[in-house]
């Protein structure tokens, strides 16, 4: 048995060829090998969602995947949501509506919200809440997050999600 496995994957449009140990988690390769520390590690057992990335267009927990299993995949991390140093409209909305406090859950929340708005451009508040229920915010700042996603949706409620 070789101690490493060769893999090729694209992260935010950049192709990487790597040798990974089979036991390495995808999140550790993203952060430690590729230096993309926007993706956070929280619980390491699939509960908190802060490590969420897009794998071939779908949200997944990068702490619940072996890097070896991502061979051939296209991955988008939070760094890939916008070009360069600018913020995309979703990120702007998080800033505008104070959708973050300590920021630890933010990368996962952005990836979840990004997918939600892609699938459903005008989600109801209930649909937003259901989508982000996949992820935990230990500041319990959910209200701001819900408002931020609503704001970004540009739905009828855009800018007018009632504050509580």
């Amino acid at each position, binding site marked *: 048995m070789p101690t490493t496995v060769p893999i090729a994957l694209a992260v935010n449009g950049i192709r990487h060829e790597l040798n990974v140990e089979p*036991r390495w988690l995808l999140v550790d390769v993203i952060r430690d090998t590729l230096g993309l520390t926007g993706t956070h590690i929280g619980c390491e*057992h699939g509960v908190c969602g802060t490590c969420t990335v897009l794998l071939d267009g*779908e949200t*997944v927990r990068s702490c*619940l*995947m072996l890097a*070896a299993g991502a061979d051939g995949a296209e991955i988008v991390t939070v760094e890939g949501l916008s070009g360069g140093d600018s913020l995309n409209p979703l990120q702007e909305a998080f800033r505008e509506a104070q959708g973050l406090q300590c920021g630890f859950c933010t990368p996962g929340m952005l990836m979840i919200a990004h997918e939600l708005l892609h699938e459903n451009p005008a989600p109801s508040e209930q649909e937003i809440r259901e989508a982000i*229920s*996949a992820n935990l915010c230990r500041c319990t700042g959910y209200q701001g997050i819900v408002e931020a996603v609503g704001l970004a949706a540009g739905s009828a409620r855009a800018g007018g999600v009632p504050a509580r």
Partner: protein
Amino acid sequence: MKPPRFEYHAPRALDEALALLARQGDRAKVLAGGQSLIPLLNFRLAHPEALVDINRIDDLAYVRANADGLAIGALTRQHTVERSETVRERAPILAEACRFMGHLPIRHRGTIGGSLAHADPASELPAVMVALEAQLTLAREQARRTVPAAAFFVGPLTTALEPGELLVEVRVPDQPRRTGGAFVEMSRRAGDFALAGVAALITLDASGRCERARIALCGVGPTPIRARGAETALLGATPAGAALDEAASRAAAATSPPSDLHGSADFRRKLARHFTREAVAMAAERATRS
């Protein structure tokens, strides 16, 4: 934490996987979607010497409509089943139950076969497969056998799978005409495992009486529990009033729920009774529209 070391095998064909599993025996664990196994590895609760990653075996991911039902490949992702028009048409209760399984990112990776083979007693899918009287195909090198769902679940996290065997397919038989199905559950938070859940399939005759019932519960025993007493109580009756009360009582009596910090055994029994009523009533109502 991080997973311990293991030998890693990623076969691209079923034959290759079965040969590996035959050679490795109980040294090896099968890695499907990983949504249960990877946490166990991260916690170092599982220490397999080898992992056989079946995610590259594309032939194991499919939903096929046959003349008598559905055939679902073990590697089919839960979210694929949830969205499948074929599943919604032929076994809508299955799509309904998938929505309760974890959250979307979990269902993107989690597989039908993985959830069944993991056999968590609180998991939704085993109970639904028991209610549907699904048949599970277990393959080993040069041989296959078919096991009814009810016989597959042996105990908590324990199935009829033997070393060297792989769950490859689930066959879900079509239900009779005028059958409605419903899955309902309660969990503390959306996406958590159920404190108690009920899958019900109710077939009505032309006069609205119950001529066939299949009821299975999750979260209230070491395996999914088929509530045969409750099914019998409904036969020949309109699924409402006293017959529904009796069925719900019998279903609750058939459970042996755990007591833990999430809920006492008594509470779970009450949930089982309540949700049996709800699932049967909902299934019967849907049967009138089918």
